[in-house]
């Protein structure tokens, strides 16, 4: 497997876990935040599918999602759900940063750079909503 494919698989694994865990986030947050969570969930699903396509185009099989994932802490209220969402985005940023470091093609690198920035922006939003300071990650993904 090429380094670029390994990087894309890492990003895909992060997207898989995000898609799974945003289901928990969406079920936990207050009603007024659910539409925003749905939008983010849809964005992650779209990027997951694009990553799978990029991997297929390189002649490899995209890694499947796990059946379930372990939550890092109990998620019982809206604030905890935002904290989880921020942590998910940090993980996604990590996957994309690794993928950037492994990318050979401009297409894969550009795709992963966008994913890295989007994850950092969402992490900032969730930090703000959870009251976590500083809101912006200093070195997202690293």
């Amino acid at each position, binding site marked *: 497997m090429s380094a670029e494919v390994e990087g894309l698989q890492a990003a895909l694994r992060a997207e898989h876990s995000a898609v799974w865990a945003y289901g928990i986030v969406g079920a936990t947050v207050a009603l007024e935040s659910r539409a925003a969570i749905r939008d983010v969930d849809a964005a992650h699903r779209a990027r997951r599918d694009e990553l799978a396509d990029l991997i297929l185009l390189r002649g490899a099989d995209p890694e499947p999602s796990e059946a379930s994932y372990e939550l890092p802490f109990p998620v019982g209220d809206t604030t905890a759900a935002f904290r989880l969402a921020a942590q998910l985005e940090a993980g996604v940023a990590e996957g994309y*940063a690794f993928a950037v470091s492994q990318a050979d093609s401009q297409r894969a*690198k550009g795709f992963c*750079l966008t994913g890295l*920035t989007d994850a950092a922006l969402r*992490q900032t939003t969730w930090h703000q909503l959870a009251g976590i300071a500083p809101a*912006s990650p200093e*070195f997202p993904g*690293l």
Partner: protein
Amino acid sequence: MPEMRQADCKTPAVIDSRLSRRTLLLASATTAAAAGLGTGLTGCEADPAEPDAQAEAAIEPLTPVLIAQQDLLASYEQTFDAFPELAVALAELRTQTAAHTEALVAAAPGAAAQVGAASSSLAPSSTQPVPAPPPVTDVATARLALRRVVDAAAGRLGAAALRADGDLAALLGSCAASTACHARLLG
């Protein structure tokens, strides 16, 4: 450190299209030394008929980025001096920007040396005054002006990440992403 990829011999990919005035001055100042200076670039012979290309080839790939980062830090300082209330609210953004700059300096010592040389060599020759921007008189306008500068910096870092390889690409991408968050917070 991984080297930047050179995509095109006529238009060196390492040169940001939005070069600052200082960068262009740096390019002129280093033209004479171009022949003996290692650039980290391979695969292209500089055309003697193209002095601009020679000057650009003498610049380390990250030099324009580091100069822009220094300009960004200066913009924070100027804004904080004029509006101390923003210094409290935005101190963390400035701190993170300084951390980005330090990390980039550590990742590209050659570029950092060029930036230092440019700063010292350009100082005495600044005989042509730069038109001052219109004075900013309120906090909201100052914040908006700073946001524009930060937004541009995020774009510049992202473009540099696209041209870089390996761990350096990831570092530049991370700095770009963090800076994009700063722009969001300023907006």
